[in-house]
């Protein structure tokens, strides 16, 4: 049986406002429990919410960036349920009339193709606090610092057809909110979270299957794994003659499995109704155009420009524009080198990205600045360094041993490009290895590599490989 996967994502992006969405308390992460919750966040008797205009501005910014409509009038509603970390007994959210309506983004796939993924809506809401169960005996702790932090919930259409597409979409939204500077995108701290709605259907079928909602997926990697697990589980259920039950399932990254949340927690009737404490949110066209003026160059536009200006492939351009900081780095590098866009791209996506990944660092934390890397690339371009030596110099740059030229000087890593010097070394090697020489000349071609190796060993890798090849061919073949 051929199955098709259908995925929709709900992404919660914590907005980078200084204060909370309905109070003046700070949103900074990591403070001691309950030190950043004012009376409004604590849901004290008599307190009232006042909307943070900055949060609205950020939501509008996002809406414009995904080509969505901005509702001239949207409404805040109360989602009613009891939980200890929800102080008021309701969450203020938007239900029937969200601030951002239909939009879309384009995702790049590894095979170079691209797909358009629809965004159903995005709405503003407040975050809840946190219940802490670890480290307490017989009781639960409650930290309300996060209560009232502004969230933008971005709901996609069920347009994704594989776990890989879901990851690509999530990365796209992640990149977008960071470009827009409306969310720090920190998955570990929970400022960018994702729930996935997953269902399967027979290939060719138009009707959607019953979906499950996966919660608690806090990395790009886990999104893929959780969906893959869930899809296989659903296939097993159906092929085993069962039916998929519509439910919320928690993803356990340690066990790599999804399991149903207790039904009691989901059997909720949220009794949504418009919050009478807040007036409908009215957004004037002038406000929207004001926000439009503040939009930066977005990933798609930047990608197109990179392809045009630097002659990069769509895939390379997409990779280099995935984050604004990476794109800025790349452009600074090209400028400092004075062109050579392809070489620059290879180094950024190759050596530099590898080192960053290995050290779990972000481009802004890179110890090798664009200018330092440019210094290195210039030495490749003028023939001072071979590719191999360049890598060695790069490692030294990464380790903080100074600028490229200083490293080359100190370690004596200059490439040997003097033909007569290389020729002399080859002569000595030929003399020292008469048996190999005669074997080679007798037709054992494979021994060529042996001689290359010997030359490199003698020059500590500094000989220009191309010259070594040419000279060896000439000299070894001279007597045949």
């Amino acid at each position, binding site marked *: 049986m051929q199955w098709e996967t259908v995925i929709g994502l709900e992404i919660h992006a914590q907005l980078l406002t200084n204060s909370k969405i309905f109070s003046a308390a700070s949103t900074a992460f990591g403070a001691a429990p309950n030190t950043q919750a004012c009376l409004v966040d604590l849901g004290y008797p*008599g307190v009232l919410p006042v909307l943070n205009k900055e949060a609205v501005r950020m939501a509008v910014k996002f809406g414009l960036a995904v080509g969505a409509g901005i509702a001239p009038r949207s409404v805040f509603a109360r989602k009613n349920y009891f939980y200890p970390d929800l102080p008021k007994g309701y969450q203020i959210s938007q239900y029937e009339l969200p601030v951002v309506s239909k939009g879309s983004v384009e995702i790049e796939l590894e095979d170079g193709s691209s797909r358009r993924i629809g965004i159903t809506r995005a709405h503003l809401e407040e975050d809840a606090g946190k219940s802490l169960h670890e480290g307490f005996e017989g009781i639960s702790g409650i930290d309300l610092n996060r209560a009232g932090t502004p969230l933008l919930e971005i709901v996609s259409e069920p347009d994704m057809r594989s776990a890989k597409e879901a990851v690509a979409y999530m990365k796209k939204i992640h990149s977008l909110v960071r470009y827009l500077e409306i969310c720090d995108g920190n998955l570990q701290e929970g400022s960018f979270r994702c729930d996935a709605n997953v269902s399967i259907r027979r290939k060719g079928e138009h009707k959607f299957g019953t979906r499950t909602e996966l919660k608690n997926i806090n990395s790009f990697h886990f999104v893929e794994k959780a969906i893959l697990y869930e899809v296989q589980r659903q296939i097993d259920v159906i092929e085993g003659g069962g039916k998929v039950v519509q439910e919320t399932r928690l993803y356990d990254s340690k066990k790599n499995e999804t399991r149903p949340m207790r039904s009691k927690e989901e059997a909720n009737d949220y009794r949504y109704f418009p919050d*009478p404490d807040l007036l409908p949110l009215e957004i004037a066209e002038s406000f929207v155009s004001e926000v439009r003026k503040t939009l930066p160059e977005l990933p798609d536009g930047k990608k197109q420009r990179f392809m045009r200006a630097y002659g990069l492939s769509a895939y390379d351009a997409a990779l280099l524009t995935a984050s604004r900081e990476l794109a800025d780095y790349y452009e600074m590098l090209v400028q400092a080198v004075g062109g050579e866009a392809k070489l620059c791209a290879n180094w950024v996506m190759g050596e530099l990205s590898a080192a960053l990944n290995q050290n779990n660092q972000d481009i802004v934390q890179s110890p090798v600045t664009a200018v330092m890397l440019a210094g290195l690339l210039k030495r490749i371009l003028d023939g001072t360094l071979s590719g191999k030596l360049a890598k060695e110099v790069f490692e030294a740059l990464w380790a903080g041993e100074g600028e490229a030229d200083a490293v080359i000087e100190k370690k004596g890593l200059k490439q040997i490009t003097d033909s007569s010097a290389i020729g002399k070394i080859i002569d000595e090697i030929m003399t020292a290895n008469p048996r190999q020489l005669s074997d080679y000349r007798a037709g054992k071609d494979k021994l060529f590599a042996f001689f290359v190796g010997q030359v490199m060993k003698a020059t500590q890798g500094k000989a220009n490989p191309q010259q070594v090849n040419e000279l060896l061919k000439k000299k070894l073949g001279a007597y045949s």
Partner: protein
Amino acid sequence: MHTKTLTELARDLKARKLSSEELTRSYLTRIERFNPQLNAFITVLQEEALAAARAADARIKCADANALTGLPLAHKDIFCTAGVKTSCGSKMLDNFVSPYDATVVERFRQAGMVLLGKTNMDEFAMGSSNETSFYGPVKNPWDPTRVPGGSSGGSAAAVAARLAPAATGTDTGGSIRQPAALTGLTGIKPTYGRVSRYGMIAFASSLDQAGVITYTAEDAALLLGAMAGFDPRDSTSVDRPVPDYTAELERPLKGLRIGLPKEFFDPGLDGRVGAAVHAALTIYKKLGAEVRDISLPNFWLSVPTYYVVAPAECSSNLSRFDGVRFGHRCESPVDLLDLYTRSRGEGFGAEVKRRIMTGTYVLSAGYYDAYYLKAQKTRTLIRQDFITAFENVDVIMGPSTPTPAFGLGEKTGDPITMYLNDIYANGVNLAGLPGISIPMGFVDKLPVGLQIIGNYFDETRLLSAAHQYQRETDWHRQIPRGFE
């Protein structure tokens, strides 16, 4: 001095004929003497009041005073008051000491007014007789076997018995106007949005509005001027200048068009109350006003609409009382559900539970459209009726209540007849209009009130109409026997 109006006392303070301390002491003495029989106060702030009075006297001495400095008042126990128990008439908040001042409390405090104490009220302002209070019923000073009305029953009884020269109240569906009517006082509910709701414990957010209960419209004008105005902490408060209500009191009534809705004179209305309304209208005609018959065709929908909207909002507003952060918490809960059900089960009284359950029901999936959504539509019809009426009249007049004060315990077994006591009041809240009740005579030796309803933000006209009627009459000067 307790027979004087707030305005008269303000003059005496200004002229240094008496000090705030003397005045405060005299009221505290009366509270001590009469409160046990009336149960009008939940908390009396003896020490704090005297300290505030002395501070006010100091301000008056160095000419740092305004019209209100040194005047005592009482707050309904629904207004959060820093450092003071704020119970909202409920066991749920019996242990709650507010860490902050409501905007209304703050404004009067800054003006230098002296807070005598916090007054009794129906639990969470849900009631029309002050019988749902956790602290027991309040007696009507005109007849201790009768209710003072509610939910601001403690404020009304305190002012009527001259235990305070004025008191604040809140009005969600008549909770200022009805008790004012039943105790022979002036009670104003301003336009929704005129006074900040910040710090006022919410019952039904789209209907709640703070106001005052006083002897005269002149006193009400004095206080409203200080409590009204935009508050950035309340998104529903309206940013619009506050007129000088006192200065406008004498604005001539000549040509005033009074609308008389025929629907107010229904079979539920005590004929003697209706007759009192017509007697009042005669005086208005003498003052140059003209009376026009009008119709509010959807008026009959106001009580049913109110009892969908108000419970719906309260069911959500009262969710925060969960025993987790403040208020009543049950003994040794075994788990979360037990904590919730027992804390709320023990903390709330029967009427509050009834409304939470009604509200939860009308908002639940499958019933939302039939009840909540339908009520929003009928609310629009009710509002539209008033807007249409105000195209042809300046104010609307009618009875504040269908009957004078009823007996304690008389309606507690039948919520519907209790709810109907606010039949003329509910629609005004649903429309968000200002309304005032002023004394217009007696029925069976019990005071009855004339309700004047104004257009949006037209408190000025309400107060001047009330004031000039009070210059022609002395109903508002009557003091219940035993409290002279």
